[in-house]
C-alpha cells in the first residue's frame, strides 16, 4: 500500500451529514481506503459508522486494533480511541485527549504521514455555521494545504481512486 491508496479524513461532528452524502456518492469500484476520524461534541452512542453504513455502497468498518487496511473500505474511528496509521494496518490508542479530543485528527494525520509520507491525501471537513451542508474543506498533500470547493472533493477522490487503480501492477 502506498500514499496514493489511502485518504485520511477528519470531520467535525456537525459536518457529518455532508460527509455521509459524500461517502454515499462514492461508487462501488472506489479503491482508496478512507480512514475517518470524527471530532467535536457528540454522545457515546451516536455512532458515525452506523450513520454512514445506511447509505454507503462501500463497506464501512468500525476500526478494531490491528485491522489491516483494505482497498475500497471506509474505516471509522471508534469512540474514545485515537487511530494510528501503522503502514498497512490501523492501531488504536487511549492516550489522554489531544486538544480535548479522544479522537484526534492530528494523531491520524501525523501517523498517516509517518507511514506513507507527505503525499498521503488529507481532507478536513468543518462546518462554516449552523447549516450542516455548508462546510469548509481543506485538502492537504505534498503540495501543501489548500481550500477546495465542495464539488471538487468528490472529483479529487474519484481521480485519486482512478490513479490508484491504474497504478496497480
Amino acid at each position, binding site marked *: 500500500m502506498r500514499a496514493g491508496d489511502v485518504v485520511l479524513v477528519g470531520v467535525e461532528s456537525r459536518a457529518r451529514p455532508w460527509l455521509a452524502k459524500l461517502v454515499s456518492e462514492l461508487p462501488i469500484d472506489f479503491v482508496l481506503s478512507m480512514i475517518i476520524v470524527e471530532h467535536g461534541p457528540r454522545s457515546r452512542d451516536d455512532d458515525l459508522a452506523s450513520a454512514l453504513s445506511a447509505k454507503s455502497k462501500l463497506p464501512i468498518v468500525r476500526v478494531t486494533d490491528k485491522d489491516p487496511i483494505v482497498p475500497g473500505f471506509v474505516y471509522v474511528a471508534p469512540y474514545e*480511541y485515537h487511530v494510528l496509521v501503522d503502514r498497512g494496518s490501523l492501531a488504536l*490508542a487511549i492516550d489522554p485527549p489531544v486538544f480535548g479530543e479522544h479522537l484526534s485528527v492530528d494523531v491520524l494525520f501525523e501517523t498517516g504521514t509517518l507511514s506513507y509520507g507527505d503525499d498521503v491525501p488529507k481532507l478536513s471537513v468543518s462546518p462554516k455555521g449552523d447549516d450542516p451542508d455548508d462546510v469548509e474543506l481543506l485538502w492537504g498533500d505534498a503540495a501543501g494545504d489548500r481550500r477546495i470547493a465542495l464539488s471538487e472533493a468528490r472529483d479529487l477522490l474519484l481521480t485519486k481512486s482512478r490513479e490508484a487503480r491504474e497504478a496497480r501492477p
Partner: protein
Amino acid sequence: MTATREADTTLQSALELLASSTGIDTSRYARLALERRIRRALGLSGFTRAENVLERLKSDDAERERFAREVLAPPMPMWRRPSFFRALRSVCLPLLRTFPSLNVWLVGCGTGEQAYALSILFREEGIAARTRIYATDPCAAALSKAREGVFDLTTLADEEPAYRESGGKLHWSEYFVPIEGDAVLRPDLRDNIVFAEHNWATDASFNEFQLVVCRDLLIRFGRALQERAFSLIDDSLCRSGLLCLGHGESLRLHAMRERYEPVPCGERVYRRTS
C-alpha cells in the same frame, strides 16, 4: 545530527532507561503508540530538549518512577465506558453467579483505577465476599501507586456521572475521603483486591479464573506480544469463564478465537466454550 536521528537516539535512550529501571522489555510493544507516550511523558512536543530531561530522569528516582508509570501504565478513567460496567452488572454477573466463588484477573491494572471500580461493583451487587480480584501489572511503580488508593480529588470527583451511568447504586462521594486535594479511597475497597507484579511477556499463568478483564491493554502490544498475552489468558480462564476486552479490541485475528463465543451485551465480552 539531523532532527530525525536525534529523535531516534533520544527514543532509544528513553527505552534503555525504562528497561534498566523497570526490567520491562518494550521491544514487542506497539512502537508508534509507545513513542507517542514517551514523547508526552518527557513533557516535550519534540525531542529538542529531551536529552536534558533524560539526564534528570537518570538521577531522580521519583521522576523516573513517574516517567515509567506514564509510559508503561498510563492512568485510566475509573469508569471508562460506563456501558461496559452496566453490561457486567446486568448480563455477565448473572452468568458468573453460578460459580461458587469468583477469581477475577484484572490484567494490566496500572495505577489501580479499574481494580477499585470492580471492587465497588462487586460490593454493590452483593458478591464481594466470595470474589477475589487479582490485579496485576509488570510496572512496580504503578502497583505501588495502586496499593495506596490515592487519586487526584478533582479527577475522581469528575467520575461521578460515569459512576452513575455505570449503574452505581450509592452516592459516589461515599467511596472516598478528600484529604489535602487528594481523594483517599475507602480502605475496605482493598479487602478483596490482591495487587501483584506479573509480566504478560515472561510470566506463566498463576491461577484459574472465572473472569478475566483485559480492557485496552492489548492495543499497547505488537502482534507477537498480543498472541503471547492471549495465550496466557487462555491458559488461565476456566470453561464458561468470561473474557472482557476493550471495545476497540477483538479476538477476530487471534488463533484462540474458536474456543470463545461472544456474549450478546453490546460489549466485547467472550465466553470460553471449550
